[in-house]
């Protein structure tokens, strides 16, 4: 029971990072972006490449940090990967979404995002192969945190959770303390009024993609670190991330963060009663439950 709860929190932090970016883009551009989870894959593979590059350039970077399997090189690579993934998100927006938006309605963008997801996923498969990859081949043993109740946790999982929480806290500070944060919230509440007050909408949209991409990249690396990397990573995480945004209420950043944890915990607790084969279907049940009980989610607003 307690093991499932802890595992749920660890997975939840990854979902939260993914859901924050998705909910912002969905709220601002008003379309369900089915390619968002592919940014996690891009981030994971990107970090893998730069991890290798840094280790080749300067060998001591290959040393692991403390009890983790994380090397200094990978820690640096995470930062680079966040930047590059943010850049890819902008590139995809410029190449596809902006143009489709100019031509058709919001729903055409949903179609386009499916197509984009398909292309990214399979191009990654072609480049890196369909097999499972790992950041480190060393086996990191899980640490027994307590014997009664029995609780096993890997150091990498603790690192991922703490790092995800720090990233979310920093983002919270940006949102609540900086003028950029104010303008972001202003645009979210009322784009027209925000523009009247001199906020540059297209600049905000660019920043949203950078932040969304960066958070997704971190989530992808943490997932790769605690599980494994494969080209269908994004596909497998897409529905849980969507569920997190719906639990939180589409458009609510804090809702998405909380929603991620709730979905992670609920999916893991469900394994107590259901066989593990059913876990991919769990997010759908959560979505159904939210739609029945409270369609606007935890913090969502009533709007169409």
């Amino acid at each position, binding site marked *: 029971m307690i093991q499932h709860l802890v595992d749920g929190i660890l997975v939840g932090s990854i979902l939260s990072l993914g859901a924050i970016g998705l909910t912002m883009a*969905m709220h601002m551009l*008003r*379309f*369900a972006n*089915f390619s968002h989870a592919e940014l996690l894959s891009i981030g994971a593979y990107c970090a893998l490449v730069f991890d290798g590059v840094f280790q080749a350039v300067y060998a001591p970077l290959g040393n692991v940090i403390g009890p983790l399997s994380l090397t200094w090189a990978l820690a640096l690579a995470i930062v680079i990967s966040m930047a590059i993934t943010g850049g890819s998100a902008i590139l995809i927006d410029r190449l*596809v979404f902006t*143009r*489709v938006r100019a*031509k*058709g*309605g*919001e*729903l*055409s963008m*949903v*179609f*386009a995002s*499916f*197509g*984009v*997801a*398909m*292309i990214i*996923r*399979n*191009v990654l*498969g*072609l480049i890196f192969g*369909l097999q499972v990859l790992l950041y480190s081949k060393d086996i990191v043993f899980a640490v027994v945190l307590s014997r009664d109740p029995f609780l096993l946790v890997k150091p990498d999982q603790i690192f991922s959770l703490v790092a995800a929480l720090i990233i979310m806290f920093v983002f919270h500070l940006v949102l609540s303390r900086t003028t950029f944060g104010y303008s972001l919230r202003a645009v979210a509440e009322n784009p027209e009024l925000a523009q009247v007050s001199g906020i540059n909408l297209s600049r905000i949209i660019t920043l949203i993609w950078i932040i969304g991409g960066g958070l997704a990249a971190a989530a992808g690396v943490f997932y790769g670190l605690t599980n494994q990397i494969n080209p269908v990573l994004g*596909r497998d995480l897409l*529905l849980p991330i*969507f*569920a997190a945004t*719906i639990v939180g209420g*589409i458009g609510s950043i804090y809702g998405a963060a909380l929603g991620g944890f709730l979905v992670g915990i609920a999916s893991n607790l469900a394994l107590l009663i259901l*066989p593990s*084969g*059913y876990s*991919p*279907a769990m*997010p*759908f*049940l959560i*979505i*159904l439950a939210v*739609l*029945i009980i409270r*369609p606007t989610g935890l913090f969502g607003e009533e*709007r*169409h």
Partner: protein
Amino acid sequence: MIGLISYLIFFTTVAAILSIAVLGLNLQWGNSGLFNGGVVAFFGAGAYGTLILGGTPQSAHLGGYELFYPLALLGGMCAAGLMAWIVGKLTIRLRHDYLAIATFGVAVAFENLMRNAEALAGGAQGLRGFERPLHAWLGDGFTYNAIFLVFVLILLIATYKFLEVLIRSPFGRLLRAIREDETAAQSLGKDPAKIRLTSLIIGSVIIGLSGGLYATFYAFISPQDILPILTFQIWAMLIVGGAGNNRGAVAGAFLIWGAWTASGWGLSRFAPLEMQLYTGSIQFILIGLVIVGMLLWRPQGLFPEKLVVSQSGRTKHVKNRE
């Protein structure tokens, strides 16, 4: 020669079956602006429903009610409609993203359920023990397939005619009115949510029919047949053909299915041995490029929707501009 003809029959049968699904999707997306992200779930509900109701008794899983075939097919269609009703009821009043996400979710969950619930539908091994109707009289060979193709074509034409009548009826005008301007339709006392839900259900029942025929054709269905790629293929067919135009939808189905089979054949024939594992990926990238490319450069499709202007008094429908 006979080999070529039987291949053509095989190809036309599958393309015609998929055309029916594209027609169903066209009602939802083309005429009502409803985004169905889980076409494959409704297709699968029709397929599994038909085989469970019409199959012979099996010890391993549910089913084997040996229902009269048309009733089994109808049952499969009802299963698809019921699923659409549940999903639609919960999401149709909300922002359109909710329907997209919920239908996508229902497809993931449906495939997962069919893969795991062995007692329900045979699990990963799929559903066996279905005898194709009139199998005892017509045998298994060429004659059967030819007659089955005729049966599928009749249903395709019937679906096409039904939809043509439907979209020209007051109901069809209402659908387009809601698609174009929901508030205006509401001001005339119409209930957009109810009309959209009806359209979602009718479309899903048609997609269910397509699934039922598909399962009948192979006398077998497994989770491998209801993977998300089928949803993409059916969309690509609609987008290439032209959303809103039923003739375009059918043409798109044949075009994309032809291109898909040809690319699969070409890749397996000419790709180097070490690339064989990746031919699937290449095909997926191609279909992704088709979807994105069409949306970028020709969003109206190869055969655009003909806008119908209804004028009271004079002729009922005047097609005056493209």
